[in-house]
């Protein structure tokens, strides 16, 4: 079923991550993404891995749900890993040398860590942001973070409202698609067999009703908004005012320490090579 897709879905809860201000989570997510792309040593990866695991535990979202979220990107993962495996040229002797296929030790290491990087990125951002933040508070957060742009006449509120509506209607559209698919299946439509052209044609009975009902829905929503005198953000007050609390500052602190630690791990090793035994250094601070 289409509704099995969990990537990008919100899971209500009351863990400490759920309770954070959405702006905090957005900023921390940006920090996290930067960190994941900066990190280039196994020790750094270990740090990120541990922090992602503790995020999962703190959010109290079941591991099964999280793994299900990674499932749809498994082919992308395999593809990037294979590209890295075959395209990376190393200095040492290739491990496999079969006609035009050459695999180096560096390639294997890079493929593994690339895959790990993508997995950590997906899990980390979804636990920190999408799984634990309702779409409404997410757009509220974005609107508030972007509000300085209002000074240069960018209609931030309108964009935020459009995003809220778009996010709000994703589940509705998924449900609608499933309903229409079921209706057409009941009339003997077949979506999963035949040539590519035949399959594309089989989508017409789904796409047309979906468009028709989406336009109708948009019309109805617009009328409903006008009936309640919606006029953009002029004189509009909010039900829930975003406010940074103690826990938000605490989490900022944790985030900065985390980023600093990873950057430190990138810089420091060259100074302590003399202190640590060579083998330890080679394992933990190997540059990927």
């Amino acid at each position, binding site marked *: 079923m289409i*509704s*099995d897709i*969990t990537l990008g879905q919100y*899971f209500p809860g009351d863990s400490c991550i759920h309770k954070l201000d959405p702006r905090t989570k957005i900023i921390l997510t940006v920090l996290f993404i930067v960190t994941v792309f900066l990190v280039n040593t196994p020790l750094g990866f270990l740090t990120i891995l541990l922090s992602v695991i503790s995020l999962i535990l703190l959010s109290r979202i*079941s591991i*099964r*749900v999280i793994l*299900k979220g990674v499932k749809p990107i498994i082919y992308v993962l395999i593809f990037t890993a294979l590209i890295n495996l075959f395209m990376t040229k190393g200095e040492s002797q290739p491990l496999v040398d079969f006609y035009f296929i050459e695999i180096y030790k560096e390639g294997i290491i890079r493929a593994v860590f690339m895959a790990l990087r993508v997995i950590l990125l997906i899990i980390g951002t979804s636990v920190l942001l999408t799984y634990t933040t309702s779409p409404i508070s997410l757009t509220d957060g974005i609107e508030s973070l972007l509000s300085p742009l209002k000074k240069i006449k960018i209609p931030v509120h309108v964009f935020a409202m459009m995003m809220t509506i778009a996010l709000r209607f994703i589940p509705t559209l998924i449900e*609608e698609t499933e*309903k*229409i698919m*079921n*209706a*057409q*299946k*009941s*009339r*003997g*439509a*077949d979506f999963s067999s035949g040539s590519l052209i035949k399959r594309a044609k089989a989508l*017409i*009975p789904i796409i*047309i*009703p979906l468009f*028709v*009902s989406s336009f109708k829905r948009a019309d109805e929503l617009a009328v409903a908004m006008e009936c309640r005198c919606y006029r953009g953000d002029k004189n509009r007050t909010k039900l829930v005012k975003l406010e940074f609390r103690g826990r938000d500052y605490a989490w900022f602190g944790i985030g900065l320490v985390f980023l600093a630690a990873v950057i430190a791990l990138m810089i420091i090793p060259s100074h302590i090579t003399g202190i640590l035994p060579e083998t330890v250094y080679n394992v933990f601070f190997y540059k990927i």
Partner: protein
Amino acid sequence: MTKLEVKGVSFLYGKGTPFEKLALDNVSVSFEKGKITGLIGHTGSGKSTLVSLLNGLYKPEEGEVLLDGVNIWQKPSEISKIRFRVGLVMQYPEYQLFDETVRRDIEFGPRNQGLSDEEINERVNEAIRFTGITEDLLEKSPFELSGGQKRRVAIAGILAMRPEVLVLDEPAAGLDPRGRREILGGLSDYVKESGVTLILVSHSMEDMAYYCDNVVVMSDSKVYKAGTVDEIFSSATELEAIGLDVPVISKIASRLKACGIELEGKLYTVGGVRDAIINYLGGNAK
């Protein structure tokens, strides 16, 4: 004779997610050949889920669905053939219309069956006769029609497949009284003429009492009670206990009974109660 049987069926939505929900819990029920069986119950009692298991849209977690005694999931690759034999009209079916003309939309099902043009034409004519669609609508776009007309076209699209079992989920929801009577009356004529087995989901007790032979009452994902219309509507208290109603006329009849007026007969339709009162007063209803 049993045409379609559901045996010990359970079904879960969203298995393995925090939203997991048991929609059907060990449901067993059978539908008699050539009869109209009504399916009533609250919103969320599992009616629509049960209905979508009947033609194999979903596969039951446990239990089996037997069509003429054969499990419909015996050959999963041929499930689409089952969907031609058990025709399902879903709730608010007008959203499924997509083709350029009404005719082509009704033809969609039969074309998927791989029938000849001649056969398809004959079936379309039959389908529009029972659903009350006039010929002049056939060449119009389905999007130009009114809500009630769209509903008829959607039902005709399923009728044209000539299923052996016809399942309709709230075919008259949101229509005016005349529209209801025409659609339900047409379907009931169709049953009489073709001998098809009809399963009707509805919220209206009046419709149930008037059109159905048997009634299945669902509550809390389970079958609460099943029997003939007589059996089901004779005990108002039982239905009221799960928050359902009996037809208004049954209430009047039971009030009269409480006043010591002995009525006998079909006390769930207006005609039945009328005859009973005439009989009670010493007249001859027939």
